[in-house]
């Protein structure tokens, strides 16, 4: 039986619920010692003096590392595997820890205390005295902030951040100005944090190689970018890449974090080097708001001009966002504007302000999440102005081909998503006017949005070891962030090898395994499946060659193209009764196992087609206008994500994405003090991830139509599409309920219950 398409329970589920899955921070290696980071108290300036003596005298302390005594590091590369790391548009930090006196943000590591126990290290960390020559920080993005205009997101050629379509900027603006129906507003989104359940953690140990003069660095790390961090760690410590090994078998959520935060693993490795000990570093939840990445705040201008009949003529989308003083990372909000609807005239621009705040990085649907919120809110506003149903308006501007380059889509069934989603929510019950529906004291409203996420593929490799007992181990240096990669990649391998799922074990999370891309961009399934398929083809070919060459085999002298494989057996397609089990072939040829390698990269189909997943998300909300509460009565999302490998993990992924969208719409926001840059929201009591009470029954459906152009089983990624569009569907529903348009996220009671002039008189205690 094919395992693809089956709702298989997570193969690692039992380990996880019984504690058998060991996460990085839980690993108890021999002779472990513990490191604790001392963070800068100021956001900007230079360290004048560090007095580590009281900490060094504290019980159990082995070492206090500072910029004065830490081992020196070599610079990180400016680019890695086609991803820009340094400079505007890059991802990552342009500094290395404890190498200089400069301070760029509050919380930046300025010392690292290593002690025999965690408690001793934590206590000693409070004794390190650091004096600063502080300089005035830049902490607020405003009109006067100095901004740059990065050219490309991550330096990728196809990710231009400044672009026009249908003429130059003046021409596009001219078309907008001449459009009969226009909307133009500013939309703002706050800083958000990934907030995975598992904090970032590293264990580092150095071993001097017996046969070589060099040393081997091993890291157990909460890492979703094994090969990238392996290269970076090797480079900064001046080691051959093969001398760095990173192990990351279980990740307790990442959502975009844990990919490009190499400075905390480097810090841990530095301490292991300086002490000659095995050092464990686990960030505190408070440090997760400083050292583990974030989504930057955005201010977006969104202007749409349309014909009276609803055809969009021009869109102007400006993004102003920020990074830290030591990163050029930019939230690429214009991404979906380019591809979501058919539109002839377009201008997108992105401005980046560097602030003395912690460094942002990708967070689930980077760019798409805030960008689509602005876009789909503006679409809702224009639909109302046009007097059109929001869904009809979107269909009027349906993109039959990729509007960016005119290429056909590899597979697009968005119209079916709209139709089914509208049925699920009861869209036909929605009055066209806002503030028309009540249930008790609640105002009720319906909203919708389109969702989209590009279906990327990146180079990946896999190795299959097929044993004489008929079982297979498949390896790739990919990651399971908690999303089910272990399970679905085993399903892919089982079908590709013609083996029952129970005979296949998928191994990941080790940089010694064949290359795989970072777990991001919803591209793991596509990329690694393609490699598994290649390796499987090789493995089966080896079996066939062994069989057809052997006189005693029923398949002797058969042509390879005539041979099929299933259920652990090769057979003649024209006569399936004639065949031989894999185990028999290997035993007869006295092989314990065969090994097959496969590698896959984006093929010529990428030139011919555009690849995306699509969906439509609908929401019904209840608003208590006097108490400022918004509760979601219902969310329904229908998605076209290609073939569904595992309906169960698929549903969980989409539920989780929608949960992220609920948080984005209603509750999640991080705030830093505007004078000191210190985090004011810094734990999960105050950073409000939606609770179950904020989450309605989420209805998710997938069309399950295989993408004929995607290698492997025809599955596109779905890790991120769930968040995209969800926030807009919710806030559009809030507008429909209240008749009031809120253009700033999240939609908290404080925004909805506005003081009167008399109440807001500023008579602050002075």
């Amino acid at each position, binding site marked *: 039986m094919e395992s693809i398409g089956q709702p298989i329970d997570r193969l690692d589920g039992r380990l996880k619920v019984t504690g058998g899955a060991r996460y990085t921070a839980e690993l108890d290696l021999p002779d472990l010692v513990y490191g604790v980071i001392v963070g800068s108290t100021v956001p900007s300036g230079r360290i004048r003096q560090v007095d580590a003596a009281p900490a060094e005298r504290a019980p159990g302390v082995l070492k206090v590392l500072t910029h004065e005594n830490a081992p020196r590091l070599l610079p990180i590369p400016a680019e890695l595997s086609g991803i820009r790391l340094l400079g505007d548009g890059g991802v990552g930090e342009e500094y290395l820890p404890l190498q200089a006196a400069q301070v760029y943000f509050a919380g930046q590591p300025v010392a690292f205390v290593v002690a025999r126990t965690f408690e001793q290290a934590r*206590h000693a960390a409070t004794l390190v005295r650091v004096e600063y020559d502080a300089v005035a920080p830049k902490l607020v993005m405003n009109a006067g902030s100095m901004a740059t205009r990065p050219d490309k997101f991550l330096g990728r050629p196809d990710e231009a951040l400044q672009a026009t379509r249908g003429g130059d900027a003046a021409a596009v603006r001219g078309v907008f100005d001449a459009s009969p129906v226009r909307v133009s507003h500013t939309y703002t989104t706050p800083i958000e944090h990934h907030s995975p359940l598992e904090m970032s953690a590293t264990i580092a140990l150095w071993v001097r190689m017996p046969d070589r003069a060099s040393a081997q660095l091993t890291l157990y790390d909460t890492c979703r970018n094994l090969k990238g961090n392996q290269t970076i760690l090797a480079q900064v410590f001046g080691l051959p890449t093969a001398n760095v090994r990173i192990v990351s078998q279980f990740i307790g959520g990442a959502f975009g974090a844990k990919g490009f935060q190499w400075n905390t693993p480097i810090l841990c490795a530095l301490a292991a080097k300086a002490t000659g000990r095995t050092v464990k570093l686990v960030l505190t939840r408070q440090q997760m708001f400083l050292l583990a990445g974030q989504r930057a705040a955005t201010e977006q201008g969104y202007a749409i001009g349309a014909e009276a009949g609803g055809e969009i003529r021009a869109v102007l989308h400006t993004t102003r966002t920020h990074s830290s003083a030591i990163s050029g990372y930019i939230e690429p909000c214009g991404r979906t504007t380019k591809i979501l609807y058919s539109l002839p005239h377009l201008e997108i621009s992105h401005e980046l302000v560097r602030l003395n705040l912690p460094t942002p990085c990708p967070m689930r649907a980077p760019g798409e999440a805030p960008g689509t919120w602005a876009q789909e809110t503006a679409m809702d506003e224009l639909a109302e102005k046009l007097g059109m149903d929001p869904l009809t308006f979107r269909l009027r501007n349906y993109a039959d081909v990729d509007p960016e380059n005119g290429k056909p889509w590899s597979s697009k069934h968005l119209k079916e998503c709209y139709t089914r989603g509208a049925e699920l929510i009861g869209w036909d019950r929605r009055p066209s006017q806002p503030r028309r529906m009540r249930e008790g004291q609640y105002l009720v409203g319906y909203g919708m949005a389109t969702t989209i996420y590009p279906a990327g593929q990146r180079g990946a490799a896999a190795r299959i070891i097929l044993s004489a007992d008929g079982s297979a181990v498949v390896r790739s240096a990919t990651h399971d962030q908690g999303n089910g990669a272990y399970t679905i990649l085993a399903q892919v391998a089982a079908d590709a090898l013609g083996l029952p799922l129970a005979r296949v074990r998928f191994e990941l999370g080790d940089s010694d395994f064949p290359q795989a891309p970072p777990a991001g961009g919803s591209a793991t399934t596509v990329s690694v499946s393609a490699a598994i398929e290649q390796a499987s083809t090789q493995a089966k070919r080896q079996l066939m060659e062994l069989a057809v060459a052997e006189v005693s085999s029923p398949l002797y002298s058969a042509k390879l193209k005539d041979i099929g494989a299933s259920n652990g057996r090769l057979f003649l397609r024209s006569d399936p009764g004639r065949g031989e089990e894999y185990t028999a072939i290997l035993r007869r040829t006295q092989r314990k196992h065969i090994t097959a390698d496969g590698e896959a990269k984006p093929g010529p189909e990428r030139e011919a087609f555009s690849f995306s997943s699509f969906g439509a998300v609908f929401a019904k909300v209840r608003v208590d206008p006097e108490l400022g509460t918004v509760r979601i009565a219902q969310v329904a999302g229908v998605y076209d994500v290609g073939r569904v490998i595992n309906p169960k993990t698929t549903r969980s992924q989409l539920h989780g994405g929608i949960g992220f969208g609920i948080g984005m719409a209603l509750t999640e926001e991080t705030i830093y003090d505007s004078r000191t840059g210190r985090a004011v929201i810094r734990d999960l009591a105050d950073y409000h991830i939606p609770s179950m009470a904020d989450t*309605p029954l989420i209805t998710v459906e997938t069309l399950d139509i295989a993408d004929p152009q995607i290698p492997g089983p025809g599955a596109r990624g779905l890790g991120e599409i769930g968040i995209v569009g969800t926030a807009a569907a919710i806030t559009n529903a809030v507008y429909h309920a209240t008749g009031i348009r809120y253009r700033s996220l999240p939609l908290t009671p404080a925004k909805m219950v506005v003081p009167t002039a008399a109440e807001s008189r500023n008579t602050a205690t002075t």
Partner: protein
Amino acid sequence: MHPFRYDRALTVQEALQSIRNGKNTAFLAGGTSQIDLMKEDVHRPDALVDIKRVPLAGILLLPDGVLRLGANASNNDVAYHPLVQKQYPGLAEAILAGASPQIRNMASMGGNLLQRTRCPYFRDTAMACNKREPGTGCSALEGINRVHAVLGASEKCIATHPSDMCVALAVLDALVQVQKPGGGRRTIRFRDFHRLPGNEPQKDSALEPGELITSVDLPAFAGRSHYLKVRERASYAFALVSVAVALEMEGDTIKTARVALGSVAHKPWLVEDAGKRLQGKKPDVALFRAVADDAFKDAKPLEHNGYKIPLGKNTLVRALMETSGLMPLQGPAGTAFASSAGGVAGDEAVA
């Protein structure tokens, strides 16, 4: 984290003995808030005396009708106690509106009274805070003061008291029974237990050093009580504003009324005139609105917390509407559904 000695007391006498002998010693009960503050180096005792096993967890109905809630009773034990559910549903609603089941199972009655503020500047040792280090200044005054006080604040401190439970205890006229370290007992009226910051924001309560809370006593009360909480997520969030109401009706007329506001001041804020204004009147939205306007007449908004004034008024009106029966409760009395403003997500508007 500051190193500390850990002792365990098994009786009240042992607990007081340890406190008398110790220097910079603190009691430890549930520890749900205290341990967090120790990890962050905000609370730095040299020694802890664990009183968890001191037999103060009983919930007893005294002969005079007073319900005695032992200081070590867990928040959940109190909330789900049949007598609390029956006679003081507003208290159950307040407790169940707070924290999570796990935290409420650990948190004690006495500890809940002594929770420290959620002001972010209090919890960050790199920032000036008069409550944490008297005389250093108040970072919140000109900072991110979204969750701060609009009533009764001083220039030294604008923190709010974070407890839900205490707001309900304020309208139930509870009494706090206290054992003095040198022997002897005293009783503190709940309204006098917490204090306004004034010039000594480091002092949250009237409790003197070394004093041990032994119980919280609820006078017999036959009226209705109710708690209503507005927060930024539907569960597991501190209140933006909250309101507790205790109401005795005589026919369709209000006989007595007590109203308190949470998260607007350094202490649970009793609306002093509410009783007088409501007494002898029929429940009426305009009357409630007038009481609400009056309750906030001295409110002083800061840069980021102005919303608390209209939101507090609206919540006060709504709580009175729901308690007096002019509007339905959002869920069964005595449950978190009744106290959750806005209800919970899902198909059903009323849980």
